[in-house]
């Protein structure tokens, strides 16, 4: 297991801990970790704070190297990390700040169904989702795309899937981050191998921590925001967590190799070679950004297709069209991505490259990028927890723009390794334990439920509470799982 972090963590207030710039040579800014007293003890247990300090060494980094309360050890950047760089000051883009699963993200679909309507058919529903939404190793998508079609998806994102393939509703696009398409995608920068990996996988869940969950809204904190999102206590929702599948993994793999010698070329000293990067404005940086955006667009298509499949399943099980079941998309948000976003830095309007690796965008009310429906309440932030306890819907607050470059946590954060989780499951039936909590679970892989058991994660309530208290986001609703499918 990883060694504990022994460097300085200075408490700033009840939610924030500072790693001072003086901690190691090369740090250009302080590190700042959001956590309470309990979470910080977990965080000290691995080397993720060291990674926060390493990221603080990146050229052009602005204000802080940030970490959310769900931080844990990652590659180069920690998971739960946020870093904004200023291209005008030599700021860099780093694939390690995005991760292998480009635009891994979450979407939430609400329904008019109440839990009392669903319970009698819950098992049938979960079985039908498991049978119809491809998940697990080697499961191909229901819809096959030729290379030219795939290139269109990479360039133009989920609008293509909705408008040309009829796999969704126009209203889905309004409530998908960036409308489901980041401009500037370059499908021609994506390798043939990435195409080969991605072609059969669009519309598949994958495995690991990816899931599709049937949930019930079991508590509402902010009635007005919940109402705007179409959420109320007792209704059923569907949450999808997945990303860009093999295509995105391969884009990351390709560019980690391509960029290996690039820091030397630009005279960039790095404390960890996994932070390989290139100046945003360099040809190499632009090439990665173009390919990364293409993979991000693929991920939105992937989640859009699974939304279509989920609607088909609900329609069949409840014998009514999805429109009549009120299956509207609440929101879709990325949590592994780098985006160019405008910020005020020391009174100067500046476009920054914001890396969010295991961190969710959380724009406040009034932000021009929000769909009109959410401008009054702020951006919905979707935070999956674990399959036994809860997930949360939050909204972004002005504090996010002031302190975290419009960012928030992305989940509960893993606490136990996969091996430890399997060992902790010896002699137990996780399937049975979930059933006792009222959750019907189906998993393709034999150890999937053990590795992803609830105890492997931090308590998501504690994680979101830190950011609620810090004024970064506000709780809107808690969602309790009742059915889950996994790879």
């Amino acid at each position, binding site marked *: *297991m*990883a060694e504990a972090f022994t460097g300085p963590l200075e408490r700033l207030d009840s939610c924030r801990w500072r790693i001072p710039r003086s901690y190691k040579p090369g740090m250009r800014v302080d590190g700042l970790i959001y956590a309470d007293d309990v979470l910080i003890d977990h965080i000290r247990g*691995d080397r993720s704070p060291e990674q926060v300090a390493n990221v603080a060494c990146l050229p052009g980094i602005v204000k802080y190297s940030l970490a959310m309360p769900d931080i*844990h*050890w*990652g*590659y*180069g950047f920690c*998971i739960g990390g946020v870093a904004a760089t200023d291209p005008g000051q030599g700021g860099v883009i780093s694939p390690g700040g995005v991760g*292998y*699963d480009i635009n891994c993200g979450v979407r939430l679909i609400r329904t008019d169904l109440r839990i009392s309507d669903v319970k009698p058919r819950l098992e049938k529903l979960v079985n039908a989702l498991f049978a119809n939404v491809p998940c*697990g*190793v*080697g499961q191909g998508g229901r819809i096959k795309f030729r290379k030219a079609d795939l290139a269109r998806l990479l360039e133009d994102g989920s609008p293509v899937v909705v408008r040309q393939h009829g796999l969704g509703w126009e209203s889905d696009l309004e409530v998908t981050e960036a409308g489901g398409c980041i401009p500037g995608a370059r499908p021609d920068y994506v390798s043939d*191998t990435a195409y*080969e*990996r991605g072609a059969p996988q669009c519309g598949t869940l*994958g*495995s*690991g*921590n990816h899931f599709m969950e049937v949930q019930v809204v079991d508590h509402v904190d902010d009635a007005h925001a919940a109402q705007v999102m179409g959420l109320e206590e007792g209704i059923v929702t569907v949450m999808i967590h997945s990303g860009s599948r*093999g295509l995105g*993994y*391969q884009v*990351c*793999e390709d560019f*980690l190799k391509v960029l290996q010698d690039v820091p030397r070329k630009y005279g960039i000293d790095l404390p960890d*070679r*996994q932070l390989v990067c290139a100046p945003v404005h360099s040809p190499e940086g632009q090439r990665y950004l173009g390919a990364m955006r293409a993979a991000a667009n693929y991920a939105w298509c992937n989640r859009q297709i699974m939304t279509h499949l989920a609607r088909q399943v609900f329609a069949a099980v409840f014998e009514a069209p999805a429109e009549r079941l009120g299956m509207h998309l609440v929101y879709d948000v990325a949590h592994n991505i780098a985006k160019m976003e405008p910020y005020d830095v020391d009174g100067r309007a500046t476009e920054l490259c914001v890396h969010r690796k295991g961190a969710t965008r959380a724009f406040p009310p009034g932000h021009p990028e929000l769909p009109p429906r959410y401008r009054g309440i702020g951006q919905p932030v979707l935070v999956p927890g674990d399959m036994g306890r809860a997930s949360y819907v939050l909204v972004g607050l002005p504090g996010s723009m002031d302190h975290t470059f419009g960012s928030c946590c992305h989940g509960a954060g*893993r606490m136990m*390794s*996969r*091996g*430890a989780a399997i060992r902790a499951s010896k002699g137990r039936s996780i399937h049975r334990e979930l059933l006792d909590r009222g959750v019907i679970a189906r998993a*393709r*892989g*034999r*150890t*999937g439920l053990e*590795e992803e058991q609830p105890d492997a994660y931090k308590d998501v309530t504690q994680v979101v509470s830190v950011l609620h208290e810090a004024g970064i986001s506000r709780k809107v609703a808690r969602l309790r799982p009742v059915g889950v499918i996994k*790879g």
Partner: protein
Amino acid sequence: MAPGFEFFDHTADLGIRVFALDRWALVPAAVEALYAAIGELVPGRDGEAAGFTFVGTAAASLLRDFMAELLVAFETRAIMLTDVSVRVFEDDRLEVGGSFRPVDHDRSVLLREVKAITYHELSLEKTGAGWEARIIIDI
């Protein structure tokens, strides 16, 4: 010491420690470890000859590149490398041959999807007892 491997813990992912008496023997053990991470894979019949050459500046990276190539082959063509023979394994060059055979899905058990072979904490070194490589795979 017989060549072999073991998994070690990493927060969200999986670590592989491969060990052998000599550097060359690390390669087939690493292949075995990769497939064991994915599941209990059984090769089918009718193999096709396969050969790989990697050049670079570090043996650990060459081994990683080779494993990444096998991962892509598994994912895109459902094939696995058997009868692994190492022709060259120096700091700057790795040459491996073998036979690609289709995975027999009826007799195999798939456990988890491997996203990538990472550079994280990647190492390959001589130890007191032989040679050891450590590779972390992204799950």
